[in-house]
């Protein structure tokens, strides 16, 4: 029973990583850039939801919608101001810009909301599910996160494979130049990708803080890095891969802490990543890379 309860805790943490990883993988898969500011957009989303609920008295759903709207606009703005001018630059330049953007967002949040941490209010009205006569408890936030993960994964997969815009995204991902020749507006497509990624970040922010209710300007950074690890683990660019990678990472982290050592929890996570990448360089569900000679 202790094992089961650890497993549930692992899935709970993993589902949070998964939902963040979905945003990472989406942007990477299409724009071919690592948006290191993703974790900080999550933090902004959580702050907006917090303000909406605490200060303006909005109901949870409306708070989420407001956070999604603000994050979408923020994502598009960041893309237009910081990343678009670097479209032709080396990937290293874009990466450094993204890291800079991450610090900018963190410090702006520090300026606006202050350094004092805030405890996120309970927004998810789903009750804790108890099994085996109370020996195993699954929190409502965990259930909602897992359901949200599955829905988002299915919707994203359908969107990219069935709709015209989604197909355009895949074209841009495959060959930007050829897509442009075929009449696809590459800039709009990439902006749209950022809009979707940032909108997902708002959802992830609310779910992250509902499960682990501590909100401060650095809240997004470590889960962001872990989720990035999860995305690489599952095969970056692959939507189901992000989900599986996230959940596995969470389970490994919790079980490692519970049965090996709390001190080595994070070390175990990253050691597993290294081993997976040595055996399967493209991640669990990543497409095998063909060497062009």
């Amino acid at each position, binding site marked *: 029973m202790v094992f089961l309860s650890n497993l549930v805790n692992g899935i*709970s943490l993993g589902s949070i990583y998964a939902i963040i990883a979905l945003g990472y993988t989406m942007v990477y898969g299409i724009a071919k850039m690592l948006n290191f500011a993703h974790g900080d957009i999550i933090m902004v989303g959580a702050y907006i939801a917090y303000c909406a609920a605490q200060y303006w008295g909005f109901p949870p759903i409306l708070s989420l919608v407001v956070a999604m709207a603000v994050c979408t606009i923020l994502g598009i703005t960041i893309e237009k101001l910081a990343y678009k001018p670097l479209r032709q630059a080396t990937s290293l330049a874009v990466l450094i810009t993204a890291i800079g953007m991450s610090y900018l967002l963190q410090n702006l949040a520090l300026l606006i909301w202050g350094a004092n941490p805030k405890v996120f209010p309970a927004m998810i009205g789903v009750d804790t599910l108890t099994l085996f006569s109370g020996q195993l408890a699954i929190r409502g936030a965990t259930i909602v996160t897992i359901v949200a993960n599955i829905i988002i994964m299915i919707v994203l997969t359908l969107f990219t494979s069935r709709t015209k815009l989604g197909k355009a995204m895949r074209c841009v991902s495959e060959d930007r130049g050829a897509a442009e020749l075929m009449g696809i507006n590459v800039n709009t497509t990439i902006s749209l990708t950022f809009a979707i990624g940032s909108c997902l970040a708002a959802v992830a922010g609310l779910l992250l803080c509902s499960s682990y209710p501590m909100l401060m300007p650095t809240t997004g950074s470590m889960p962001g890095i872990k989720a990035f690890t999860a995305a690489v683990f599952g095969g970056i660019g692959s939507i189901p891969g992000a989900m599986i990678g996230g959940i596995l990472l969470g389970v490994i982290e919790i079980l490692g802490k519970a049965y090996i050592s709390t001190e080595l929890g994070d070390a175990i996570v990253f050691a597993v990543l290294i081993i997976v990448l040595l055996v399967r360089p493209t991640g669990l569900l990543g497409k095998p890379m063909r060497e062009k000679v």
Partner: protein
Amino acid sequence: MKKILALVLALALAVSMMAVAGAEDLTLKIGHIGPQTGAAAVYGLATYRGALIAAEEITAADNGVTVELLNQDDAHDAEKSITAYNTLMDAGAQMIVGCTTTAPCIAVGATAYAERVFMLTPSASSTDVTANKDNVYQVCFTDPNQGSASAAVINERKLGTKIAVIYNNADAYSTGIYQTFKARAEELGMDIVSTTTFTDETTDFSVQVADAQNSGADLVFLPIYYTPASQILIAANAIGYEPTFFGVDGMDGILTLEGFDASLAEGVMLLTPFVADAKDDLTVNFVTKYTELYGEVPNQFAADAYDCVYTLVEAAKVAGVKSGDAAEDICDAMIAAMQQIEVTGLTGTMTWSANGEVEKVPTAMIIRDGAYVGLDS
């Protein structure tokens, strides 16, 4: 023409005489270093604000002492802290209040030791801060002091029989307290049944709390800051685990944590030198001013920094410091003065030993009805 020249000379003489007469007034230039951006910003902002209130009070009291507080941000980074220190020294600082956090304080302390600059830290509580440096003094308790005092209180009052400890192994403060707590607890024959750790990046505390519960601990010792402590309280509540929680000075602040359900902190015990709810005039005056200026209740960091500035002024008077004295010329006199003075401030009545550690009495408090009260009341 000569008359005019004589007049001018006479005037100049008069002015310079006045300047000499005014020289008994003391203007102290004190530099403050602490993190005001980044993850530890809350502590540096608190110490700066506390120090600023003290500096303004002393200056406004109009009894011949003017305190000029210079401020630098170190973002809780040792290298930035050295830069901050150099900037302050270039600006003419005569002594330092700082650094707020331990790691930067150790780094700056070494430089200040070599350059003979007197430092009084409000809150860097590791023994490494003062070790082998005669110029660094503390206003806060040292970590060992807190750890062994906590073990003694728990044992004396029989607050728990099986003890779990959850500490931050990435933090010198938390690890320092844990080690002395463990040593003292073993001496006293106390039973530590579970020891788990976390780091600053930890989001999930379920494993640590479950381990304490499964080991049957009836008291959980939390030598950590209040932010992770609040998460531990929430995680324990989620699984219906209700031991006695015992914290140290870092626990102060948990009641004012925005959005935190303070009823979860009911019954939490802590050792702390300062509580904002105390009813003495000094505390009430400080808390009122701080709340008016910054819109929040001051924590013990702010109180420690406030005491720092008063202590420095007191020591400077005893040491016979003059306005404009260079930092390296007054350092030794300040060190000698620190060992003579006794200062009563917000955090109690303090004296200092030659190794720079403060002596004051920690009070055991318990949270009852959303307020700190003495354990005996």
